[in-house]
C-alpha cells in the first residue's frame, strides 16, 4: 500500500443542537475540513460517510450523496458505511484503503449522527438495534445493559471496582472541560460518579457516554502529495478493521474484545510500532468499562489491570500514556456515526500541537480505537508524524 496522509480536519461542536439537522452538521464538518486543507470541493474524488442510524433517528436514507452534493462534492462515488458506533472508523478504513491502493488521490472520510431529536427510550431502542435484535433486544438489553454485564464479569474475574470505573469518568470529564468542542465541559468527582442515577447496574449515568449531535471529517491524500495541502501532514502508519459475533452470548470471554485485539495486532504490525511506542490514544469509552477493556486489549497494561492502571493516573493527560485527552465519548460526546473520524481529528489536533490547554508533551505516535456495538466491529488506526 502506498503511504497515506491526513491533510485536513473538520469538526462541529458535539452537543444537542435543536437548530441543526443531520445534513447541516455533516456539511459544516466537511467544509471546515476542506478549508483546513485549502482544497476546493471540486478536487474531491470520493466521499466516504460513516452514519449509524440516520434512517431511524431522522428518517433520511441515501445519506452519502445527500450530504456530498450539499457540500459541493458532485459526480463522484459517495457511499455510506454502517458499523454501529464504528461506522465512521470503518468509512475511514475503507477511504484509506482506496487511496492506499491508488484508486483515488483526494478523498473525504466523514461521519455524522443526529440523535437528540428523539426521547431517551427511543434512542435506547435505536441503539439496541446494533445488538442482536432477536435475542438481546427482545430480552430488554440496552447497550448500557450489555456493557454492565461486561463490567460485572470483569469485576468478578479481576477485582475491578466501581471506583476504577469512576476514575475513567473523572479523567475524561477533566479533559473534556478543556475541549471547546466537547458536549459536556464540567468536571466531576469520584463521589458524584459513584452516586449517579443507576442506568444498568453497576453503571450509573456517569459511566455512560452522551447522546449527542455532531459531525467530523478528514481529507486524505497520498503522502507524496501532502505538501500541496498542508505543512503539518499526519501519516496513517497502520490501520485495520476486524469483526466478531454481534451477540455477547456468542463470545467465549466478554472481558476482552477479540476484534479489538485482532485489529490492534494488525495495525501495530503494519505501522511497525508496539503499544509501548504509542504516545497518546483516543479509545472508545462508550462506557467507562469499555475504556478499561480497551487499554488492556491494546496492550497498554496487562489483562485485568486496566482499573488500577487508570486509578493510578497512568492515562491522565500528564501521565505516561494519555488516553482520551479530548474528553472521550464520555465528556466530548458520542454522536455515534461521527465518533470514529472524530477520534482521528482529535489525534491530529494533538499531533499538530494545536490542543491548547490539553496539549500533551509528546505526540509523535497516536492510536485511535473505534468499537462497534459490543465488539462486533473494531477499527484501530495508528498515526505518526514521520
Amino acid at each position, binding site marked *: 500500500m502506498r503511504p497515506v496522509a491526513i491533510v485536513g480536519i473538520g469538526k462541529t461542536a458535539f452537543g444537542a443542537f435543536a437548530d441543526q439537522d443531520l445534513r447541516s452538521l455533516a456539511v459544516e464538518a466537511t467544509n471546515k475540513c476542506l478549508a483546513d486543507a485549502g482544497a476546493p470541493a471540486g478536487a474531491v474524488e470520493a466521499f466516504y460517510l460513516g452514519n449509524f442510524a440516520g434512517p431511524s433517528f431522522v428518517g433520511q436514507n441515501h445519506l452519502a450523496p445527500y450530504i456530498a452534493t450539499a457540500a459541493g462534492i458532485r459526480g463522484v462515488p459517495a457511499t455510506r458505511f454502517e458499523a454501529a458506533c464504528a461506522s465512521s472508523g470503518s468509512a475511514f478504513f475503507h477511504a484509506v484503503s482506496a487511496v492506499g491502493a491508488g484508486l483515488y488521490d483526494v478523498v473525504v472520510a466523514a461521519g455524522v449522527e443526529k440523535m437528540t431529536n428523539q426521547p*431517551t*427510550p*427511543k434512542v*435506547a*431502542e435505536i441503539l*439496541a438495534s446494533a445488538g*442482536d435484535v*432477536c*435475542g*438481546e*433486544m*427482545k*430480552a*430488554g*438489553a*440496552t447497550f*448500557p*445493559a450489555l456493557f*454492565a*454485564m*461486561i463490567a*460485572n*464479569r470483569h469485576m*468478578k474475574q479481576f477485582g475491578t471496582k466501581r471506583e476504577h470505573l469512576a476514575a475513567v469518568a473523572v479523567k475524561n470529564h477533566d479533559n473534556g472541560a478543556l475541549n471547546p468542542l466537547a458536549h459536556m465541559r464540567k468536571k466531576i468527582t469520584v463521589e458524584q460518579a459513584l452516586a449517579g*442515577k*443507576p*442506568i*444498568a*447496574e*453497576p*453503571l450509573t449515568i456517569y459511566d455512560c457516554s452522551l447522546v449527542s449531535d455532531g459531525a467530523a471529517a478528514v481529507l486524505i491524500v497520498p503522502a507524496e502529495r501532502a505538501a500541496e495541502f498542508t505543512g503539518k501532514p499526519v501519516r496513517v502508519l497502520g490501520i485495520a478493521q476486524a469483526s466478531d459475533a454481534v*451477540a*455477547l*452470548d*456468542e463470545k467465549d470471554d*466478554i472481558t476482552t474484545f477479540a476484534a479489538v485485539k485482532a485489529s490492534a495486532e494488525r495495525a501495530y504490525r503494519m505501522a511497525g510500532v508496539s503499544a509501548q511506542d504509542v504516545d497518546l490514544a483516543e479509545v472508545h469509552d462508550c462506557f467507562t468499562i469499555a475504556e478499561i477493556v480497551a487499554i488492556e486489549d491494546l496492550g497498554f497494561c496487562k489483562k485485568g489491570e486496566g482499573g488500577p492502571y487508570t486509578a493510578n493516573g497512568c492515562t491522565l493527560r500528564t501521565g505516561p500514556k494519555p488516553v482520551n485527552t479530548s474528553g472521550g465519548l464520555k465528556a466530548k460526546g458520542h454522536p455515534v456515526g461521527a465518533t470514529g473520524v472524530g477520534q482521528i481529528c482529535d489525534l491530529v489536533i494533538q499531533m499538530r500541537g494545536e490542543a491548547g490547554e490539553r496539549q500533551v508533551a509528546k505526540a509523535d505516535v497516536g492510536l485511535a480505537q473505534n468499537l462497534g456495538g459490543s465488539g462486533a466491529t473494531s477499527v484501530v488506526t495508528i498515526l505518526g508524524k514521520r
Partner: protein
Amino acid sequence: MSTVEREPLGNGTVYTETVVWSPPEAFLNEVPYQIAIVSLEGGRRVTARIAGERVAIDDAVEFVEFRDCVPCFRKR
C-alpha cells in the same frame, strides 16, 4: 441464540447479569428488571430474563419458560 427456540433449556449458571433501570421503549412498564447471560449445561450461553429473586454471577438457575422467544430463568 437462534431466533426460534421451543425446547425447554434445563438448568444453567449465571455467567453475568445486570439490573436495568433505563429501558428501551417496549420495557418502560417493567423497570427495574434483571437480565443475564446463562451458561447452559453443555456450555452454550443464552441471553435471558430472570424471574423472581435477583441472581448473582455463578448462581444456579433453572429454565422457566420462553417469553416472546426469550428464555426466562429463576434461582434454583
